[in-house]
């Protein structure tokens, strides 16, 4: 599948409708069945894919609408993690979960969700997976001698799943590690864990690094400077980062620390409902081109669109696509 220059994609999640939030919560209150919820999920995922296609996105995801949040979708699947199922009141709450023994090697069962995505679009696809560092921050470790050891073992188990995704046809996988920004001191070992996760995985690997998007607001503030130079050791092809909301000051780091990474540049602020114009998007792309060549840029929102109302999310994606087209034209494409 040939992609245009400055390909557009999303970070993962698409708008979560209020009625779906209520239905998910109804499921936890045992007022609707798993079967019904699965059918609902199938329908909304198809709709999310269709919205991305209509908006003109080049690389689509399943909108992550099956997921309660970026943690629990994995916590429920990782073998050996104990969950207190009474700990959730609202679907978006995190489960209380803990690990009491060494994680067994077993499938997480992500492949069917990826296959569903593949079966419902002709476009290029991306599948997103929360990284071991972020997961280790939310699962209480009662077994491993350190957080680092726990995260490394999560990476070992999840590596198998990534390979299964590749076998199923996945060629672009995004690892979400927003918690790096909250715990920059962990980066020294976080990159090793990331490398364990992606070892031998024959696909394009992106790592998504933002300042959090829980409830549609940042969890931390600061500068991406903390990433450098350690992140240069990551065996991934692409970094996707939040620049629309925070401004482009940190782009300078790519000049200061030259690398071969592609950059997924965030040009849409997902923490406001104000819809950017294509011209604003184009200006943000042009700014990035001062630091990196077009061949190494992917265009995407700062983070997932999960907290935006659907019309806003759709309008923002359309503006993003249009902004990318403006710049492609300027580049003679």
């Amino acid at each position: 599948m040939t992609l245009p220059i400055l390909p557009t994609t999303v970070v993962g999640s698409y708008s979560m409708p209020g009625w779906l939030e209520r239905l998910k919560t109804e499921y936890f209150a045992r007022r609707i069945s798993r079967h019904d919820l699965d059918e609902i999920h199938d329908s909304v995922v198809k709709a999310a894919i269709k919205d991305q296609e209509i908006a003109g996105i080049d690389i689509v995801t399943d909108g992550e609408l099956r997921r309660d949040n970026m943690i629990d979708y994995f916590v429920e699947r990782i073998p050996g993690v104990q969950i207190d199922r009474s700990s959730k009141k609202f679907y978006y709450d995190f489960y209380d979960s803990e690990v009491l023994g060494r994680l067994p090697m077993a499938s997480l069962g992500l492949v069917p969700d990826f296959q569903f995505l593949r079966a419902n679009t002709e476009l290029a696809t991306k599948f997103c997976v929360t990284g071991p560092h972020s997961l280790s921050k939310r699962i209480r470790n009662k077994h491993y001698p350190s957080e680092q050891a726990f995260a490394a073992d999560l990476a070992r188990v999840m590596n198998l799943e990534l390979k299964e995704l590749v076998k199923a046809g996945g060629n672009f996988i995004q690892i979400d590690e927003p918690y790096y920004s909250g715990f920059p001191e962990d980066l020294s070992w976080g990159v090793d864990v990331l490398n364990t996760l992606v070892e031998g995985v024959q696909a394009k690997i992106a790592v998504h690094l933002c300042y959090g998007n829980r409830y549609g607001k940042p969890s931390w503030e600061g500068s991406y400077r903390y990433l450098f130079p350690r992140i240069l050791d990551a065996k991934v092809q692409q970094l996707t980062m939040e620049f629309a909301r925070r401004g482009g000051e940190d782009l300078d780091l790519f000049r200061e620390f030259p690398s071969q990474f592609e950059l997924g540049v965030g040009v849409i602020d997902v923490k406001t409902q104000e819809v950017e114009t294509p011209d604003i998007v184009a200006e943000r792309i042009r700014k990035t081109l001062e630091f990196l060549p077009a061949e190494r840029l992917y265009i995407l929102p700062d983070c997932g669109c999960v907290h935006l109302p659907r019309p806003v999310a759709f309008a923002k994606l359309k503006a993003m696509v249009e902004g990318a087209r403006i710049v492609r034209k300027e580049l003679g494409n």
Partner: protein
Amino acid sequence: MILHLNHVRRDAAAAVTSDAVAALVSLLEEGILDPGQYARLRVHLDWIQYRHNFREPVAITRTEQEAEGGASTLELRIDARQIAPGTLRDLVRSAMAGLDTPRDMPEEGTRAAERVYLEDFRTFRTSIAWDFNRLYWHRLKDWESATGRGYEQALPGGKSDANHPAAIADSVADFWTLLRDLESQNQLPPELFTLEIGVGLGTRAGLWLDRFHALDQQRGTNYFPRLRFLLCDYSQATLERSRPAVHQYIDQCSFIVLDALDPNKTLSFLRHKVLHAHLTNVYDNLPDEEMVRRDGRLYWVQVRSYLPAVDASRIAAESQIGAAEIASIVSRLLEVGPEVLADRCRGIRFWQDVWAAIRLEERLVDVENLRDPSFPEGIDYGQIEEMLRDAPSDIRFHLSSGALQSFRNTLPLLHPRGYLQVQDIFVTGLSDYRMGFYGPGKLDGSIVNWVNGVLLREVAERAGYDLHFAPFHYRPGSKTSVLYTTRRE
């Protein structure tokens, strides 16, 4: 008949209860009240907290289905504080007669001769009562000069809880601790934004700055030079009055006119940057509306303001205007202020007299019968149902539309580690509404109303914050609570 005794007026409760029951039984025996109505009657005694309020001593309302032929509930509300001895029976009888008024043709009904209506039925937040409230704050000096007392003197304790030194010291200590934590994590921003909305005379801001300055010096942390204190109010005149209180720190202060309903609109350049936002007695003065749940159905309380005809005639005569003109002159008063009358002093007196006399008539409209229920920004029917899941089955509650709007539009300003602190009068459990209904009341020329903290908590959780309410323990007997947010994981 269900009798609900709220026991607001404890000393006279037994006698009034006895009088009310005797009056209703006698009306039943005389055939004025039929047995069907009697059976469906809910009587609320001393239902409203504030002595100065918008209600008749006796008011009766029916839920909407009755007009459509269904068996609906009749609500009789009695405010014993307004009742002269021996008049209750006649007042109840008169209120019952008002029930015969055709719903959509009040001008033809019994009440028409007794009331001068100033608007059509609507949800309270859009009532002209709030235009009076707005006029009061914009023309505060006029009001104060006429009454000879400042607005703080009109508060229940004669002064604002905002300025309590111990509360301020605790607030400063919390803020300083946050700064120290951020610094220890190398996350202290270069500028430390803190925000007060509704600054009044600036007394709290001045005391807060004094305290923070002293603490910072005492601990040698040198945060103070980085502090940016924003004093915000929706009145330029108020902001001007606040300047002397902070003159020592004027270089670190900014004075910003903003609408408390939407701070984010004015301060969007500070999105995710404000470390501490504070409001005292602002939410209780923002537009509000009410709902009622009866027998499992949810009703919107719609109101229309009126002047009792006897008051309208008196005010017209004293103001030297025609009685028929009063509604249109009130309307112009709310547009141009007391200059509506050629003699400004007479205009102020007219304003104050109308405000003292104005009342609200109400009806209960089934939410499901409304084509566009128009819930306040940030809340939907599903969330209200969720909130009511564990609430008493029969309940009247505030939607606190203005407070909700302000709250939602302040949160985006907060830094990821920032917090909001609000001192106000909150209902923190829905079962508290069984103890009576907390407003609205009249406080000088403004409106005072309790705030539905349960609903705020519901909205906050969806926005990523947990809400906590602590009693304002600094002044014994204070009804104030302190709301503060913590980040929800």
